[in-house]
């Protein structure tokens, strides 16, 4: 029987540097209009450098939702959105941002008292969508476009789903090559669009420089994560979730190289000194699904108390500049397209399964936790198949529970406890059978 002692996850300390950058970014965004910057709303994968090159500010819808939740300010915008008719089954990131957008456009109703982050974000001058593997993304941006009276120019980069037709696999094949070309062409049009919005010719030099930074940060992160193939793992999936901003909405932000270098150095140092993310690692777990941001700290300690390290995850390991070598800073569009096309949500099922099997081998995974984020159906769409097939093909056991990204009303703590406990028990039984 698994015994749960109160042990705590040994989280990376260098994460503090990232916090500093995050704070700078939000400060800059809040003051964007005052400093004469245009503000672009974006969703989907990180396209900040496209705007940064033109000295424009950008806000990333999901990053925003997560930030609002991290500040415990999510309830008011979510309530406002619900009162306006947005069903609580809609993507909670979208609902949260919609609520904030409506605060900005319609004003704050008397009966709500939202926090500063939810109300201080400027209205958009343009909207750019770049959503892989989820139709909700563009639909959400369209809803924002309507909230602001259909006056905001909107550019939608259509990222085609990489199904794996006619033998195309991860980063290979006719379908893949066609898709890359298609996305590159749209990026060229996006650049023309941004020239119009910003009113000046595109600053390619700056863009290339920023993509050089992106490549460096992406590489550092992938290398740092790969150090965690070691047993015991020096850092966990929860650390990588906390450190996501520098490769997400903070992509190419000043200071990200140093921050990620510090993270990598700390992981290396831990490895050299035999320090692990979980004091007494017995089990290695894969987290499948988007993060439950409200529960991150609780989850990290929960697994630690079962001597289980959540070593890797689809969210962290299969997206966010996970293929940095494909980026040529001199000619960056192809590399950006590849990273976006081949990210976790955009891959057809057989490719996803193949990638997960590879990661499971590389990280010596014993079990998988499927976090079925209730309002992120893009992520949970393949959970049942993955659970069945990874068990069949690799003997990996799993458990699942429902939760959400930023709406904790979908989360049932008791059930989560029981499910995690049951997984650990079966892993324990499997280990004792040898």
């Amino acid at each position, binding site marked *: 029987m698994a015994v749960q002692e109160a042990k705590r996850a040994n989280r990376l300390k260098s994460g503090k540097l990232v916090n500093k950058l995050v704070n700078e970014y939000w400060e800059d965004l809040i003051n964007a209009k005052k400093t004469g910057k245009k503000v672009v709303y974006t969703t989907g994968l990180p396209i900040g450098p496209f705007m940064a090159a033109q000295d424009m500010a950008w806000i990333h819808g999901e990053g925003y939702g997560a930030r609002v939740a991290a500040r415990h300010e999510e309830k008011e915008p979510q309530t406002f959105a619900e009162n306006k008719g947005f069903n609580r089954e809609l993507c909670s990131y979208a609902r949260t941002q919609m609520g904030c957008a409506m605060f900005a456009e319609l004003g704050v109703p008397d009966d709500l008292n939202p926090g500063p982050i939810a109300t201080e974000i400027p209205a958009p001058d343009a909207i750019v969508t770049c959503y892989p593997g989820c139709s909700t993304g563009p639909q959400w941006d369209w809803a924002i476009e309507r909230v602001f009276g259909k006056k905001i120019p909107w550019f*939608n980069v259509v990222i085609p789903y990489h*199904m794996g*037709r006619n033998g195309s696999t991860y980063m290979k094949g006719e379908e893949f090559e066609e898709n890359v070309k298609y996305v590159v062409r749209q990026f060229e049009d996006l650049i023309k669009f941004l020239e119009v919005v910003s009113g000046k010719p595109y600053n390619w030099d700056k863009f290339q420089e920023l993509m050089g930074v992106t490549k460096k940060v992406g590489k550092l992160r992938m290398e740092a994560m790969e150090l965690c193939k070691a047993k015991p793992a020096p850092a966990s999936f929860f650390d990588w979730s906390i450190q996501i901003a520098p490769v997400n909405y903070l992509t190419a932000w000043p200071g990200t190289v140093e921050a990620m270098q510090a993270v990598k150095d700390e992981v290396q140092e831990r490895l050299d000194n035999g320090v692990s993310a979980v004091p007494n690692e017995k089990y290695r777990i894969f987290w499948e699904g988007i993060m439950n941001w409200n529960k991150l700290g609780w989850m990290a300690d929960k697994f630690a108390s079962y001597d289980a390290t959540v070593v890797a995850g689809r969210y962290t390991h299969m997206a966010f500049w996970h293929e940095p070598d494909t980026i040529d800073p001199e000619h960056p569009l192809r590399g950006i397209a590849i990273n976006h096309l081949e990210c976790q949500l955009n891959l057809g099922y057989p490719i996803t399964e193949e990638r997960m099997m590879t990661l499971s081998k590389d990280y010596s995974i014993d079990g998988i936790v499927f976090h079925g984020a209730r309002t992120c159906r893009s992520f949970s769409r393949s959970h049942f198949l993955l659970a069945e097939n990874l068990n069949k093909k690799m003997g990996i056991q799993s458990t699942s529970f429902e939760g959400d990204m930023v709406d904790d009303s979908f989360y049932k703590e008791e059930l989560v406890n029981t499910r995690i406990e049951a997984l650990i028990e079966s892993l324990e039984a499997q280990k004792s059978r040898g």
Partner: protein
Amino acid sequence: MYQNLSSDEILNKLAQIAADPYERAKEWKMETGSKIIGCYIMHFPEELLHAAGVLPIVLQVKEEPITTGHAYYPAYFCGPTRSIVDQAAKGELDFLDGFVGGDYCIQAVGGAEVVGNLLPKVSNMFFRLPVGNQPWTHGDIVQGLEELKRDIERFADKKISDEDILKSIRIYNKNRCLIREIYELKSVHPSLLTSSDMLSIIKSSMVMPKEEHNEILESLLPKLQSKKETIKEEGVRVFLSGSFCGAPKNEILELVEQSGAVVVGDDLFHGYRYISDNIAEDREPLEAIAAHYIDKNTNVPCPTRCDPKTDWPQYLVDSMRKYKADQLVIVMAQFCEPHMFFYPDIKDAMQEAGIPHLLLEISHELDSIETIKTRLEAFVEMAV
């Protein structure tokens, strides 16, 4: 063969086909030895598949509760996608030779992934239909059609000529014209056909050879024309909206009418949305099909198409006026994200236009049928 039947007999026949939606296709396969392709519900160029000599059918939601499928797709996905997964899991789709999934909605993408896994012997194809309406969208849709054409040609082992596609377009256009004529009749004489009758007409069209369906409709139309004189009109005029991939259940349609309403128009996918517009016959065929995707969305806007030049709420307000409808009943499949994103705008537009509306969020299992009944009755009562 249908000439000698009365309109009611013909409608019964169509209702039978619709109730057991894959039977006619299976018979056709036996008769012809040809292949059947299932389309994972909305937005597929059936004409292009038809041109390859195969029978494209639109996969249908079944009324029965989901059982085996629970193991493959979470319960918080929409009923239409779960129902098709369930059918695949139960072996009910084994008669298919191929199926085509599409990217119009992530829940449909995921459903098709599961079906692909459950039916490994069935050829698994995909139609990429870029959203939006930018200067390059038309060309991008043509490219998506060319990719599908290439895959269908491999599947059917047949080159598809422009002439083949044009021939199919003509057959499908004819079907749409005939159904639109029935719609026109019904909008003027709403009691001529129940909304379940309309549903049978559309649903049967989706699952049987169009040539045969055209013949049936050609027999039905004159009979309806002559019957219309004897119809007494009564009831609150209701416009029915929503219900994307899955047809609204007959039980719901019956409740609307039992509450004292007559349905004068709709924008259902299993309704006017399916036949609202023809494909041009005087253009290069793939270009014409691509243009059709943009144009029909201007006619009857679809929230999955992300075209900011369209205005679904305004379309609804205009339709209410056009059909002199008193009330709007919105049927929303539970968990249907594209629809949920639009409801607040529709609500505002209706309030602004002074049009009463009722939102019915319907679960696949119809677990709140009594509440739905009470709400519908109270709503229709308001207009009496």
